[in-house]
């Protein structure tokens, strides 16, 4: 699905150089989150092993990242692996872990060279040591990058995110770092959520969440952070999600934004 590209006149240049027709710079979501669902169904519908579905998904993710960067999105978060995905067949899980390592070694490396800040949210400690060290090294090396933030949710659960924040806060209360339990408020909890890896606090909550494959649910992804997020559900399976689909979702998002002039409740 082609999209005509118009150079929008823009004083700062750089990120906003190529916005497709119909999209406005001022209404671009700062933080886009994507639940990349449908790799397995994609493979099964073609009579292929699920692993090939994940490989196709990897290609689509690369494209997604490239396009978000092109359109000037500040933060892209992708849901790669949930705490609930461990029940999948051992073979598939091992394949995925290997694939994640490969993605960090090559795809993420490419992003780092392009000034993208790479980080991972989730229970990283629950992943295999080789993956953990790749994650910490790529985060460390890219932490001073000034371009887009690319956040990958690996072994992530929205409820655990909130519970971990609770634990840390409880420890601070116990250690006397925090005055009292009554000092706990929404801002404090937000500061302790895993999305605090995103430096700019106003970008920490997604403006837009896209879920592919037609599933109409959040599946325990960024529950707190999605309080006012626009949810767009797309029928296509993730490996088929292309630039045109992203533009369509962004256009729909922008249409809704115009109705409320920024007043969300």
């Amino acid at each position: 699905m082609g999209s005509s590209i118009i150079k929008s006149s823009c004083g700062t240049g750089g990120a906003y150089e190529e916005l497709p027709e119909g999209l406005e710079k001022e209404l671009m979501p700062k933080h886009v989150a994507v639940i990349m669902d449908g790799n397995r169904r994609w493979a099964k519908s073609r009579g292929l092993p699920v692993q090939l579905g994940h490989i196709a998904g990897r290609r689509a993710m690369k494209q997604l990242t490239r396009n978000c960067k092109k359109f000037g999105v500040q933060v892209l978060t992708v849901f790669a692996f949930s705490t609930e995905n461990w029940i999948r067949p051992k073979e598939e899980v091992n394949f995925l872990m290997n694939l994640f390592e490969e993605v960090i070694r090559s795809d993420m490396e490419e992003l780092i060279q392009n000034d993208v800040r790479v980080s991972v949210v989730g229970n990283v400690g629950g992943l295999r040591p080789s993956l953990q060290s790749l994650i910490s090294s790529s985060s460390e090396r890219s932490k001073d990058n000034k371009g887009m933030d690319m956040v990958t949710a690996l072994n992530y659960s929205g409820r655990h995110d909130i519970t971990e924040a609770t634990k840390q806060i409880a420890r601070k209360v116990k250690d006397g770092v925090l005055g009292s339990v009554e000092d706990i408020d929404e801002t404090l909890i937000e500061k302790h959520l895993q999305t605090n890896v995103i430096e700019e606090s106003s970008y920490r909550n997604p403006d837009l969440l896209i879920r592919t494959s037609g599933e109409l649910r959040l599946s325990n992804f960024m529950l707190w952070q999605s309080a006012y997020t626009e949810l767009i559900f797309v029928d296509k399976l993730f490996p088929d999600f292309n630039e045109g689909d992203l533009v369509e979702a962004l256009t729909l998002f922008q249409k809704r934004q115009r109705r409320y002039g920024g007043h969300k409740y």
Partner: protein
Amino acid sequence: MAKQSSNRATQVIEAVGSFLRRCIGSILSAGPIPKHIAFIMDGNRRYAKKQNLEEGAGHRFGYSTLMNMLKYCYELDVKYVTIYAFSIENFKRRPEEVQSTMQLIQEKIEGLIEKESIVNRYGVRVHFIGNLKLLSKPVQLAAERAMNATWHNSKAVLSICIAYTSTDEIVNAVEESCKEKQKGNEKLLDEIGEGPLIDVADVEKHMYMAVAPDPDIIIRTSGETRLSNFLLWQSARSLLYSPGVLWPEIGFWHLVRAVLDFQKNYAYTEKKSKES
């Protein structure tokens, strides 16, 4: 809204409608029926504008729609219904509007516990969920009276979220979890000695919404697809359904559609977990 039951023809139409709904209900019961449906009743004000009514009138139509939807849910044997009646964010609206909404809410809470109300007809226990201290005294008292009057009802549950936001609910649950761990003599450090042993279950049990299981379906009218700080924690696995109609325009068929979607997804999620 005047009661229509005195008109004979209307009675017949009501009876036919009720019979049809029961037929459809028994067809739907061949599959799984959701235990808990939650509603974000969006669109009352837009409805009033659309029908050229004065502003408060939209909420009155909305109330009448709510009574119908509750009836349909309980007829279908949905045990738990939750509604988003008033968000903490809504206190920011114009004072006149907030006041008239509060007045309407108080009036309707009192109506809820009348003898012929839906609540008594279907044996519904009512809970008010939210930071109730933010409400005016008269509304708080009305809510308390309604909760007391219905606490012995055991067939179904209605949770009314008022002065509520999910983030406020979570903050409260976090505070209560911390307080509990401070007081308790139990093991205060987790296995790696890093912090208090707090887990998902601890936070969950202190939620105001612990009175109900997680919603199976969350329905938001007027075509908006945002949760707007409603049941964020509880929505982790809920089916999200957003019909384009404004709240006062929603009807039995939308509910049927939502239940059918739920049943279709139920079959798929069951299949998915079996394949794993």
